């Protein structure tokens, strides 16, 4: 895919937004209702940013428990995402969902899911439903989900029915505290697609341009009626599994190696090298995004708690 200054700005803004948002969550956890089980995507921003770049209006996106970035990248208002995390009345889901259940239908984000692997079947069904309108369903999950029955049952059915669904695996090498090698002998998640003749690719998940190219090709494949595609993005989470996890199960050197591959800083360098953005642009993006975010956090904080009557509303549609 081609890239131009506008596109580069968009990608960098999105990644910066996710990074800054997650850092804010990290530093304010425990304050003002911000708590629960919070999984940050610091280090994995490139995947969400790239996917949002290639998703179209008729498409629908599902993500897993580590989903703030996907909601934001697709256009959810940061202050409402923050309000949802804080359990406020103006939250994306009026405070009822929380970090693992963000939904933003207006932006095609059918939502985050707290059950590992459980979103893959949902995406298949949605793909079936939106196929007549030219839509593609995208579902994002971790490498841990690839050992769940859902993943395999779904690969089989998606291939059989040639569903327009793109399975995006954020392979960060760990499921909670356990490295992938303790969960499977299969090194690459993409390997599973071969069995079904499903198009698959494995990319450097910290290279936003590589992810964007691969995602675009995957969605095009699915949209064109050629059936599902699997896209594996090799990446790393810089934080513990959830906020509160000291992550003592990882070697410091491993973390340090990945810090070198920081996707946000890396794309900032690339964008300046290629002349899409100046160093000043990059700095301004960071500054502007953080300023905007500070206001968003304020606004979220000022949002009231949901009324008690909300408790029994929305049980039925």
């Amino acid at each position, binding site marked *: 895919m081609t890239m131009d200054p506008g596109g580069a700005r968009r990608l960098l803004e999105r990644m910066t937004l996710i990074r800054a948002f997650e850092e804010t969550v990290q530093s304010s956890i425990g304050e003002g209702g911000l708590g629960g089980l919070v999984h940050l995507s610091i280090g994995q921003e490139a995947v969400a940013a790239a996917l949002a770049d290639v998703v179209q209006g008729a498409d*629908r996106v599902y993500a897993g428990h580590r989903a703030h970035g996907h909601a934001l990248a697709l256009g959810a208002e940061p202050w409402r995402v923050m309000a949802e995390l804080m359990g406020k009345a103006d*939250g*994306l*889901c*009026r*405070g*009822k*969902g929380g970090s693992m*259940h963000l*939904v*933003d*239908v207006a932006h095609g984000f*059918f*939502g985050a*899911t*707290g*059950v590992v692997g*459980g979103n*893959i*079947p*949902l*995406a*298949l*069904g*949605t*793909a*079936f*439903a*939106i196929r007549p309108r030219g839509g593609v*369903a995208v579902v994002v999950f971790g490498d841990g989900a690839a050992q769940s*029955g*859902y993943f395999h*049952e*779904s690969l*089989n*059915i998606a291939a*059989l029915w040639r569903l327009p669904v793109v399975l995006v695996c954020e392979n960060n090498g760990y499921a909670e505290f356990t490295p992938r090698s303790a969960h499977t002998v299969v090194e690459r998640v993409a390997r599973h697609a071969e069995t079904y003749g499903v198009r698959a690719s494995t990319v450097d998940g910290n290279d936003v341009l590589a992810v964007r190219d691969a995602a675009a090709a995957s969605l095009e494949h699915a949209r064109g009626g050629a059936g599902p595609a699997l896209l594996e993005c090799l990446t790393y989470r810089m934080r513990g599994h959830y906020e509160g996890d000291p992550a003592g199960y990882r070697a410091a050197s491993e973390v340090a190696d990945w810090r070198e591959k920081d996707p946000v800083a890396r794309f900032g360098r690339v964008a300046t090298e290629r002349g899409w953005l100046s160093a000043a642009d990059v700095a301004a993006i960071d500054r502007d995004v953080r300023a905007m975010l500070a206001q968003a956090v304020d606004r979220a904080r000022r949002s009231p708690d949901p009324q008690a009557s909300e408790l029994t*509303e*929305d*049980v*039925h*549609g």
Partner: protein
Amino acid sequence: MAERTYIAALREALALEMRRDATVHVIGEDVAEGGPFGATKGLAEEFGRGRVLDTPISEGTVMGMATGMALAGLRPVVEIMFIDFLTLAMDQLVNQAAKACYMSGGQLACPLVVRTAAGAGRRYGAQHSQSLEAWLMHVPGLKLAVPATAADAAGLLMSAIRDDDPVVVVEHKILYYRKEMLDVLEPVPLGRAAVRRAGRDVTIVATARMVDEALAAAETLRSDGIDAEVIDPRTLVPLDLDTIVSSVRRTRSCVIAHEAPLRGGIGAELAALVQEHAIDSLDAPVARVGAPDVPVPAAPALEDAYIPGRAAIAAAVRGVVSPSRR
């Protein structure tokens, strides 16, 4: 008047709804061939394989797919061949379908229907004979229908399909071939009980196969001088509690009959509600009739002993109706 079986009524209701609304889809194992009981026979021929979707043996994923279809605006009707296999699909049903509307703050609706066959009596053994409706009653967000007649099987299914929430229709496999005179199939509203027999001396609340058993018990009880009222709630969520409670207020006694094991069955909730709302009217505790707390045995002699029936219901009634009323 035409004579129709429960299964034929289900089949016709599905066809009617599919004709009426192109978003209705049928999905499940072997549904294109009609399934083992024939509930979906002929649908693939009429509506094509694009709307009658045969799936691999992947209940969990199929339930999730149907949920994903519903979230995107279709009206899928999933068949889980035996309710025993709902155990493989509870995650999607309970964690996704039932909660989608709530967790999204009302952004998503999930007009999903699940059809499944419950019940013992066919010597199928412990893994093909359970009655698990009590689990579903305990899941906020789900609605739950338990039809006992062909008219209700069709009518509740039609209402379920038109409802914007996930609804589970628990069919009873022994009732599938029950015949009744039935001309027009029409929606039966969710949440309205049917008084199957009016009576003055005791209220029998019975579901699914136990409705006929309760009616048979009521006939027997006439010779005891007991005039029993038989109420079929038809849906457990929503529950038409008013009809039950006002009956009990009149009859002053209540027996609840279901096929599932007693412990933690739907009779527990019904008994708890009745005593809560009508204890002052009760001459005796609410009695419950159900299976013993054991898996369903395969042997005919044991399975017949397992399934509660008219005799147990009549005995329970005799235990609660005060002699002064006879």
